[in-house]
């Protein structure tokens, strides 16, 4: 496996150079790249277009041989059934409408703090998470609402969490960037770049441990770790690629490369912008996929998740995607080139799926409209639920600091302090 994967390690951008002592390679590379990026945006756009054009002929630009073989075998005309298509559409619409509703509610003063919306990236969440079993784990980032929804966390609970209400999926204690659900095995939104990757690796380690040490035959959960292009310059990414490949952990590293780390262009931040190439470097397949096409994402997801479930180890998937809004609702989004935004707006993943469904007569306009309406009603209900839900009571303040409240210690009277009624009232000073 790793042998075939290494086939993709080609120095693509720069040919192998005999380093001349007077002119180090990197300086020319950096210089030319820098100039290109700073003053010659059309070239960059053209490059990206050409890569996406290449990806239209095949769902993946570069995949392991295993993935390619699988592709050839499945020669059915359609990539999905009608039912599958409607599930995908509904999940993407849920994600899109939910986030639009968040923007509204944020501007109406119903939610606070930093709120990062997922618009434009829905194909990644839907394409991957809809392939999971309920027992599988998802580890997300600060842009986590839609991952939570795709995993099955009810919109009511996510919305309520955003409103800071006691009925939220984390009782109002987590907020936008910290969505968790034990029931749906959502291990969290992690708000610092990269910190979720080790946690995801740990969840994958648990699965392996339960299977091999505890001899639980059913322990075949797969963990998906979502993160962005900016994270791929962080050490935890590399450390965990290494450990996951080393121990063949059942994990898929899903890079949502939306080209921008707030205001830092991926191309300005990364020496080799092709993130997928880092997979083979660690002995795992690296796959690049058009993240604006849910069907292509789905193909890759299926392969990577099944590979992990079979115990064959991790996969790195780079999904080329784009966020249609600013980094967060606090971001005026003035930096990104309008032409670039327009380009990706033209590749809206929901429009693309719609077109596929229509072209292949898998769904009618009416059916999709019915789904839209259903989701609108669901979200109206979620907002109403969140709005009417109670704020967390004072008594909640100290409840979850420790799983075992003895952690608050022994008071001057010799009793455990958590026994003091002030602790249940939340008025104790800790």
């Amino acid at each position, binding site marked *: 496996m790793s042998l075939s994967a290494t086939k993709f390690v080609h120095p693509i951008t720069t040919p192998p150079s005999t380093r001349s002592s007077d002119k180090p390679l990197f300086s020319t590379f950096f210089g030319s790249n820098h100039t290109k990026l700073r003053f010659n945006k059309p070239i960059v756009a053209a490059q990206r277009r050409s890569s996406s054009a290449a990806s239209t002929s095949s769902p993946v630009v570069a995949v392991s041989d295993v993935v390619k073989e699988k592709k050839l075998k499945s020669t059915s005309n359609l990539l999905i059934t009608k039912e599958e298509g409607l599930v995908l559409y509904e999940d993407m619409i849920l994600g899109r409408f939910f986030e639009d509703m968040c923007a509204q509610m944020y501007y109406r003063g119903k939610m606070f703090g930093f709120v990062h919306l997922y618009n434009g990236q829905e194909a990644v969440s839907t394409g991957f998470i809809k392939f999971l079993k309920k027992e599988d784990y998802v580890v997300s980032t600060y842009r986590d609402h839609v991952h939570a929804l795709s995993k099955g966390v009810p919109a009511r609970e996510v919305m309520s969490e955003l409103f800071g209400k006691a009925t939220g999926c*984390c009782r109002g*204690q987590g907020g936008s960037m910290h969505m968790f659900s034990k029931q749906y095995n959502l291990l969290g939104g992690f708000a610092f770049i990269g*910190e979720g990757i080790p946690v995801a690796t*740990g969840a994958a380690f*648990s699965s392996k441990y339960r299977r*091999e040490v505890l001899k639980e035959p059913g322990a075949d959960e797969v963990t998906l770790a979502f993160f962005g292009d900016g994270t791929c310059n962080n050490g935890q990414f590399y450390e965990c690629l290494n450990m996951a490949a080393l121990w063949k952990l059942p994990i898929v590293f899903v890079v949502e490369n939306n080209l921008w780390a707030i205001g830092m262009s991926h191309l300005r931040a990364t020496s080799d912008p092709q993130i997928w190439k880092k997979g083979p470097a660690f002995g795992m397949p690296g796959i690049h996929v058009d993240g604006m096409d849910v069907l292509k994402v789905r193909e890759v997801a299926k392969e990577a998740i099944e590979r992990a479930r079979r115990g064959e180890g991790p996969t790195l998937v780079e999904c080329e995607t784009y966020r249609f809004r600013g980094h967060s609702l606090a971001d005026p989004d003035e930096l990104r080139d309008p032409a670039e935004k327009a380009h990706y707006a033209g590749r809206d993943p929901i429009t693309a799926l719609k077109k596929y469904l229509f072209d292949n007569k898998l769904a009618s306009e009416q059916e999709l409209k019915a789904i839209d309406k259903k989701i609108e009603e669901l979200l109206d209900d979620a907002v109403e639920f969140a709005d009417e839900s109670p704020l967390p009571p004072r008594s909640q303040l100290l409840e*979850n600091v420790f*799983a075992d409240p003895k952690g608050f210690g022994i008071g*001057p009277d010799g009793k455990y302090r958590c026994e003091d009624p002030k602790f249940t009232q939340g008025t104790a000073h800790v």
Partner: protein
Amino acid sequence: MATLFQGVGAVTPFSASSSLDSNKLLLPSRKSLSISDSRGSIFVYRSDALNLKAATRKQDLLIPNAVATKGETSTSAKSGHELLLFEALREGLEEEMERDPRVCVMGEDVGHYGGSYKVTKGLAEKYGDLRVLDTPIAENSFTGMGIGAAMTGLRPIVEGMNMGFLLLAFNQISNNCGMLHYTSGGQFTIPIVIRGPGGVGRQLGAEHSQRLESYFQSIPGIQMVACSTPYNAKGLMKAAIRSENPVILFEHVLLYNLKERIPDEEYVLSLEEAEMVRPGEHITILTYSRMRYHVMQAAKTLVNKGYDPEVIDIRSLKPFDLYTIGCSVKKTHRVLIVEECMRTGGIGASLTAAITENFHDYLDAPIVCLSSQDVPTPYAGTLEEWTVVQPAQIVSAVEQLCQ
């Protein structure tokens, strides 16, 4: 002393100074503990704090007596077995791994190499490479991995080869270990133990001679304990593993080779309780970890000079055992804190604040806190010695306080 075991001796190859006087190594005193009666059964030291079933009954949470006091009985000198502190840690670890297959160890060189201080020696052979996982040198990531494993059902013990290395995992310890239970609305628990050798050693240089307690103490949601004898090392290790809370267990590089006779029977200590080392009347000396031995060395001099100091090893660095500390303050009315921690924002500073808040009326003199100096631990032996508190300083501080 009644609580002294015969034949207890400290072997201290790591220590250049004679601070670890074998004659000062006291076995923690126990209240109404009869080993012969409880042979073969688990007993929990003092309270039923670790008995979750009992903890739900309110009357059981009343703690009649926080620690043993003067004049109590001890076990006979012949019972138990003698081992070194690192072996006691290992014994505790092994017992818990035997008891619960979800308990696993991860860290640098914990497996085939047996741990940098041999705390995990032989465990990989016995339990396999997955349960005793040698990790690459990636502290942030393997600590995070431990947290992810804990969230999904395992009970990992993460070893920092040197505790200082865990500064590289500070984000995971702070943001994830400490906060995830809370931010998840109580949905996920993180029953993890983070442990390893720390403290000022013997000319190990600044980076390997860290005093980390001050850094970690303000992280919400974690508990911190420091072991100081083979007996409490084993009992605290077991308690930490069984706790549903994330626990940082501090070990001191200079204490690993302390020798002590410990009970053959299984025992678990409370993570929240202090340990009475020497009951006394004149002054309360609060200390922990290695400084316990500097204090006991000073106590010898002080006793010869006619003082009767009460020495308490606070053991639980977070939270403080305010009952034991309070009872002592109410008795002696004078407090000296001796710690190896940094002075600024250290454990002593927090302790001072806690005592002032709770027991100010009982104090006859201002609290004196002897901490190590706020300097990067120097390499040179002379400078290093001046960095940490020495017994002579403790003696003169007590003399001043008791004037």
